[in-house]
């Protein structure tokens, strides 16, 4: 929905080129460029009514009622008084208008707030503070640090060297890292000299306003010279200035013409499946309405020709009305009368219920995260019931499942295991609960945030156990971390991967403090003694080697090689003498892996001086050789990394968010499939898969698809499929054939014996998502209990979601926290953003947001389920009550000559949906619950009916209609038979039309109220009040409307005077009401009772259990972390990348200019950084390119941390 659609003042002729001159308002004004005032509001005081009404009548339902209203004005057709339609219509319109008005007032407010922000503008050779809205194209403005960029600016000069400025573009593209912009040298000379700036009269010619954020072309003419302008010199509105004291800019585009504004208004409207079903149903109802009206019109024709002609003596036909024409009129008259099958209040009520259920989400304390003071938020109020139907959850990993905090938790040194998992007391073994964290006060350089729970390790360090020392020495030496020591003793590590940061920090705390490095030396403090190691070579990490080594010469002159890497790889390189220790360490490694920890094996060896010398020579040759350098180097590395001595293993916990494994387990029980889509490496993702219970050791098989060509991937997928489902190989062929033949076709859900998992990496996913293979992939993935896609790009995330959306008739939910999740959040039916952390992008494009992944289970299993249940109950009941109401007219038609006479009083027709039955059903839609939230958690299976659309479907709707049909028959014929031919106890008339109308409507009121009572399973005081109150109100209003006073004021409008008093005093009237009520309820109760007895639904079973256990509420389901000791897999996972070794040794990083550090990478991951614009990709990118996300290329992005700005001085 465009916010500007109607009021954006569009230039009459499209601008082809923008011309402007700095400091020359008169010249610039001649082009009538937009000023910097923005307007997102839609209405003003005068345009509100016409515009809003115009918009509202574009909605089909409102238009329909407008048509009805027009029909009612035609006297020949009008079967109802105008007010029966006008009153509800006005009510609906005014409610919507009020909502729109408040929204718009808020928009006005926010517009004003933005427009009234102050900025310094150069006017008349002076800098003066001016409101944003008064800034014009061609003005020069001064921005200061942390200010928002006012408009799209050409950067003129800045406080930083080389005229650089740093901007954060989170609002524009969602990237939280900083980018640099650089001014032209010629304008940079202007500095902050106001005089010079005021004299600046450069002329800019550039492209007209557009929405491309990454491109800009233009020229600056200044001092007779022409300079070309590109995107690097432009500051866009929406950015924030960072780390730059001040800068000056020339306004190029202002207000609505800025790229930010040109980009806005793209949000897609999401609709729920119930919405879509309702639309279909409403269309069906329209059809049905037409059929009913045709039947009645034909009936009218027959009646008119057979009976009506005889009756013309008493009631002559209107002018020019023949039997045929009367048929035509009757058709429209019945359209009016029977319009209540599509009640206008349905739409309003649905919105109210959704709004109410959204508020419950906002209000839920159990989804409030105290740590970040973030409550859950329903950002969309129209999707609630969809939350109860989720079948697939697509989750991001980092920041969503994990906290991106690596914790050194355990280690195995020389065959002895140290440490316990988890720093929270809950999960620690009972006998250790009281045990305190290790005191590192002996070490002045220790990181105070590091926590470790095993004192024996510190003891071992203090006792100078040589293996333990070697272990930590290795950790302190073998890495690519860089240290920064601003003040003495305050170390700040910049690690390329959080794993390394955690390891080096661990070493630091145990007394082996990595202090600083040069390209050829590493200085560490070993148990208080400063030592310097000569760094001779770094044998870099890569994904094939899965290890890294350093060769150092110690202060004593001893040559050593330190190596850390994947256990599987290291074990092959070990000296045979380690055999025994290998066995013990393997045991430990398995234990670590079973706990979902990331493991690395550590080994070392002493080198022979001569051999090394010779090796170094060859290494030099290899590294300078031109062909197959990599291969040769690899071979050399391979050669030297042999016969290692095993030191031990480390285990790092990639800290999960609270409650993630439990949540995933719950979701799995609710038959929700969780797919993890992550940018991480395969090992890391797999590891997290295990630690958060997604992949399980007990699974029959975890397929790993990592082929590098289409055929390979296809083969791997086919293999996976055939091992899961050995028999129907041709089935898959059939499926893909059908799909290619017919286009989109829903893939059926299949079942498979056993549990399987699937891990697929980004390369393979690219092939798997190709048209020819996507169905195979989907089939294989859907057969698996868990799917993990690693190294996926944001686009692929969205593609996977789209794939499932296209071929599976299932509702999808995507949850993520970062800008790279936005595409998937927008693609899924429901997008959930993790709020309260860095970056707002995911939250801003999400439909729901909360602070912790674990709240997802409450959102789905409680709120979603209830919303769905309520909405379905509401719809079923709403259709029931309106159909019943309407069908009675249909039956009456056969007795009133198809003359479109109504059964009820017109006031009753008007008020039935608005007053008499509105509140009880709303109450049900807002308060109903089958079982309370703790039972909902206890039985996640309760969620399954929602996924299968069981509560409201076409079938349910049809049942509903049948039920109404029965009820309406009872409601018409019982009063008919009871009243017809009877008289009052004083012999006077009671079989008249008005008494009959009153009787029928009273019966109807009782019948629908009792029916509501049967539907409702949660009677709060409010519900009871609504139900009884509505009945009471019915009588009160009826007696009022039928009173003498009302009649004497308007005899024509209240002709039912006295009917209530005269009829309702009759016993036979009440006996009739009783009989209809009994007959309406009887079959329903019987049917339900039989169903409950014979094949109870899961809801009934649980409710039965609740009744059984009423005295004892269920214990809150607290499961301890599932511990497994045996593991068949390696726990190796190391989110490291190739290329750092070279960087560290090349020394290039040292040339990094001394920019005030915006966001250096801190050892413990982003949660420990104090500065908000920290990108998860660790560090800013001065080049501003290839920064799309962390996901696709962790290495490249992170490498940029080290990359230097091309400095002309060097």
């Amino acid at each position: 929905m465009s916010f500007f659609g109607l009021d954006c003042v569009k230039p009459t002729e499209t601008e082809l080129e923008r011309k402007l001159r700095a400091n020359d308002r008169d010249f610039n004004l001649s082009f009538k460029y937009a000023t910097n005032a923005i307007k997102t509001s839609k209405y003003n005081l005068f345009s509100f009514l016409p515009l809003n009404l115009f918009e509202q009548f574009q909605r089909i339902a409102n238009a329909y009622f407008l048509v009805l209203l027009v029909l009612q004005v035609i006297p020949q057709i009008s079967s109802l008084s105008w007010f029966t339609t006008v009153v509800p219509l006005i009510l609906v319109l005014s409610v919507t208008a009020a909502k729109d008005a408040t929204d718009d007032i808020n928009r006005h407010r926010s517009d004003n707030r933005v427009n009234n922000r102050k900025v310094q503008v150069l006017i008349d050779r002076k800098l003066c503070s001016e409101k944003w809205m008064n800034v014009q194209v061609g003005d020069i403005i001064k921005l200061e640090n942390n200010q928002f960029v006012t408009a799209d600016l050409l950067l003129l000069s800045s406080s930083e060297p080389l005229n650089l400025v740093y901007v954060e573009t989170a609002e524009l593209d969602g990237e939280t890292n900083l980018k640099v912009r650089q001014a032209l040298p010629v304008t940079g000379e202007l500095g902050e000299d106001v005089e010079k700036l005021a004299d600046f009269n450069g002329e800019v010619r550039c492209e007209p306003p557009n929405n491309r954020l990454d491109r800009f072309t233009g020229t600056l003419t200044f001092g007779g010279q022409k300079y070309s302008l590109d995107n690097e010199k432009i500051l866009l509105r929406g950015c924030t200035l960072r780390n730059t004291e001040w800068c000056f800019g020339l306004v190029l585009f202002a207000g609505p013409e800025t790229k930010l504004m040109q980009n806005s208004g793209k949000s897609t409207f999401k609709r729920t499946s119930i919405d879509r079903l309702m639309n279909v149903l409403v269309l069906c109802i329209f059809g049905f309405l037409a059929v009913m009206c045709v039947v009645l019109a034909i009936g009218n024709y027959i009646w008119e020709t057979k009976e009506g002609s005889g009756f013309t003596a008493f009631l002559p036909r209107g002018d020019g009305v023949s039997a045929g024409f009367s048929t035509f009129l009757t058709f429209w008259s019945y359209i009016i009368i029977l319009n209540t099958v599509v009640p206008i209040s349905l739409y309003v009520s649905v919105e109210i219920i959704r709004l109410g259920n959204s508020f419950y989400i906002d209000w839920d304390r159990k989804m409030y995260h105290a740590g970040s003071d973030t409550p859950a938020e329903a950002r969309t109020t129209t999707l609630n019931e969809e939350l109860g139907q989720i079948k697939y959850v697509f989750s991001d990993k980092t920041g969503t499942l994990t906290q991106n905090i690596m914790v050194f938790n355990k280690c195995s040194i020389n065959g002895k295991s140290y440490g316990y998992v988890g720093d929270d007391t809950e999960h620690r073994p009972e006998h250790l609960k009281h045990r305190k964290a290790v005191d590192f006060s002996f070490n002045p350089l220790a990181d105070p945030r590091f926590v470790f729970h095993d004192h024996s390790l510190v003891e071992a360090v203090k006792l100078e156990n040589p293996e333990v020392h070697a272990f930590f020495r290795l950790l302190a030496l073998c890495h690519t971390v860089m240290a920064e020591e601003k003040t003495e003793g305050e170390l700040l590590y910049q690690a390329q991967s959080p794993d390394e940061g955690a390891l080096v920090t661990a070493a630091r705390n145990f007394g082996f403090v990595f202090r600083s490095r040069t390209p050829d030396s590493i200085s560490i403090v070993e148990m208080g003694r400063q030592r310097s190691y000569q760094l001779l070579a770094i044998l870099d990490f890569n994904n094939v080697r899965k290890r890294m080594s350093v060769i150092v010469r110690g202060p004593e002159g001893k040559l050593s090689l330190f190596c850390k890497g994947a256990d599987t790889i290291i074990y092959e390189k070990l000296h045979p003498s380690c055999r025994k220790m290998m066995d013990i360490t393997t045991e430990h490694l398995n234990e670590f892996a079973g706990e979902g920890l990331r493991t690395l094996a550590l080994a070392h060896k002493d080198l022979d001086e001569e051999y090394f010398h010779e090796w170094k020579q060859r290494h030099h040759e290899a590294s300078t050789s031109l062909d197959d350098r990599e291969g040769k180097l690899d071979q050399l590395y391979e050669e030297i990394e042999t016969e290692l001595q095993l030191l031990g293993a480390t285990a790092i916990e990639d800290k999960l968010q609270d409650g993630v494994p439990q949540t995933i387990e719950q979701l799995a029980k609710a038959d929700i499939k969780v797919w993890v889509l992550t940018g991480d490496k395969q090992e890391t993702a797999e590891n997290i898969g295990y630690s958060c219970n997604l992949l399980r050791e007990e699974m029959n098989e975890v397929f790993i698809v990592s082929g590098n060509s289409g055929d390979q991937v296809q083969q791997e997928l086919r293999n996976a499929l055939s091992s899961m489902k050995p028999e129907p190989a041709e089935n898959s062929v059939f499926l893909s054939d059908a799909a290619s033949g017919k286009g989109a076709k829903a893939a059926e859900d299949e079942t498979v014996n056993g549990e399987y998992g699937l891990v697929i990496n980004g390369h393979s996913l690219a092939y798997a998502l190709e048209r020819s293979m996507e169905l195979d992939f989907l089939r294989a993935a859907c057969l698996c209990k868990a799917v993990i896609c690693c190294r996926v790009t944001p686009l692929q995330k969205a593609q996977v979601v789209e794939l499932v959306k296209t071929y599976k008739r299932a509702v999808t939910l995507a949850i993520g926290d970062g800008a790279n999740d936005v595409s998937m959040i927008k693609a899924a039916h429901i997008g959930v953003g993790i709020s309260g952390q860095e970056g707002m992008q995911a939250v801003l494009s999400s439909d729901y947001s909360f602070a912790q992944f674990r709240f997802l289970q409450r959102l789905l299993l409680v709120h979603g389920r209830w919303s769905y249940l309520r909405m379905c109950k509401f719809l079923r009941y709403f259709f029931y009550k309106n159909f019943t109401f309407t069908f009675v007219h249909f039956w009456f038609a056969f007795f009133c000559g198809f003359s479109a006479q109504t059964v009820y009083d017109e006031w009753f027709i008007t008020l039935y949906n608005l007053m008499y039955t509105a509140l009880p059903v709303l109450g049900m839609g807002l308060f109903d619950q089958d079982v309370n939230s703790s039972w909902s958690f206890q039985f996640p299976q309760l969620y399954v009916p929602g996924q299968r659309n069981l509560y409201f479907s076409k079938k349910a709707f049809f049942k509903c209609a049948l039920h109404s049909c029965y009820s309406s028959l009872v409601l018409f014929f019982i009063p008919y038979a009871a009243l017809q031919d009877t008289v009052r106890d004083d012999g006077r008339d009671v079989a008249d039309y008005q008494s009959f109308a009153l009787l029928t409507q009273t019966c109807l009121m009782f019948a629908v109220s009792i029916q509501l009572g049967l539907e409702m399973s949660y009677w709060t005081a409010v519900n009871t009040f609504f139900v009884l109150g509505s009945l009471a109100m019915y009588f009160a209003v009826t007696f009022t409307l039928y009173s003498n006073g009302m009649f004497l004021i308007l005899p024509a409008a209240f002709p039912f005077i006295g009917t209530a008093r005269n009829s309702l005093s009759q016993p036979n009237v009440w006996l009739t009401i009783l009989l209809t009520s009994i007959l309406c309820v009887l079959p329903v109760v019987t049917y339900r009772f039989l169903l409950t007895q014979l094949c109870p639904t899961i809801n009934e079973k649980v409710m039965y259990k609740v009744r059984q256990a009423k005295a004892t509420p269920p214990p809150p389901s607290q499961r301890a972390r599932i511990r497994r000791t045996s593991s068949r897999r390696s726990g190796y996972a190391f989110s490291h990348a190739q290329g750092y070794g070279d960087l560290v040794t090349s020394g290039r990083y040292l040339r990094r200019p001394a920019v005030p550090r915006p966001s250096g990478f801190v050892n413990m991951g982003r949660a420990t950084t104090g500065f908000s614009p920290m990108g998860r990709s660790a560090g800013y990118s001065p080049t501003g390119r290839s920064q799309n996300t962390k996901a696709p290329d962790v290495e490249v992005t992170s490498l940029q941390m080290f990359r230097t700005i091309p400095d002309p001085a060097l």
Partner: protein
Amino acid sequence: TTASPCSQSLLGKSDEQSGSLVRHRNRKKSFNRIMGKEKSKTGPLARRPDNSAFKQQRLPAWSPMLTASTVLPFFYLLALTCMLLGVWLLLTVQRTQEIKVDYTEAGSCDVCFEMRKNMSKAGQKCTCMITFSIEKAFKGDVFIYYGLRNFHQNLRRYMDSRDDGQMVGRKSSLKSPSSYCKPFDVDANGVPIAPCGAVANSMFNDSFLLTYYTINGPSIVPLLRKGLTWYTDKNVKFRNPKADNQTLAEVFEGTTQPSFWQKPVYKLDPFDPTNNGFINDDLIVWMREAAFPNFKKLYGILYRANKPYTNGLPAGNYSVIISYNFPVQYFRGRKELVLTTVSWFGGQNHFLPVAYLVTSSLILLTAVVLTVVWWKFGKDGRNMAE
């Protein structure tokens, strides 16, 4: 934990940025809420939702469920209740007596029936007589009704064709009837019709003289021709225009009678001047339109002051002399005369008692079936296990 200052600054920032970001739905709501909360509360838990039962959806409630222990006894009880009600009603209804005499073509009325077929003879008087006998005396109040079959008083245009404003005595409406009355609002000369509209125009205008043949010879059965209407109709809904010392005829001056009528509205009751104009009982009774095409309307009540009618209508032979005016052959209708006594339950309508008895047996049957089903399948919550 450590993240909180960071995230708070971010949320603050988002608020600031709200103006420049316009692509997101419902943001304003949340910002307002943040703003609102910030005003009211500060501190680390400023935005924590209230812990009220309503907001946390923990309102105390009653959750009924259809269990065997509630449904089955309820069914049996209901069956019993309906049975008792049905029997009681049946006994009551059977104490009332009713006799219906179709006089459309009966007796000597066939002549009149033929005559009324002809529109041109509508003005001619026609009187006929029918006879019937009562086997068993009608005890208590006896009500005499005329019945019409196949007369659609419930047609929409027919029902609308009246002016309640006129009949409540509004002078303005008297002279300018509502357009709903068309084409019976004014006569050919443009004189307003009072009462206007198709309903009044088609008023039933047969009259009856009931004679009882005693041993001593025929005796005219005295009928009360007033008090036939609802109190509200007679006193509120229908009123004559205010007449300050004017006679009714003067009040109605300038209006004309409905075209089918033989006499003006102020001369409807020749015997009782207070029963004339819009408050004439017959008119009021007719104007209360019947819901269905077959209906009966009260004509008179037996006047029981004198013998032999003090206890009701004695058994014996009766005759009715009918002034046969109302034509029914156009719409293939029938006319009948109904004599009935009433009970507290009203007239003689067997439907409700029978319906209650049938319902009762239905419920009983269902209850038995349900009991069997419950016994065989659902007992002890056998099916309730997962």
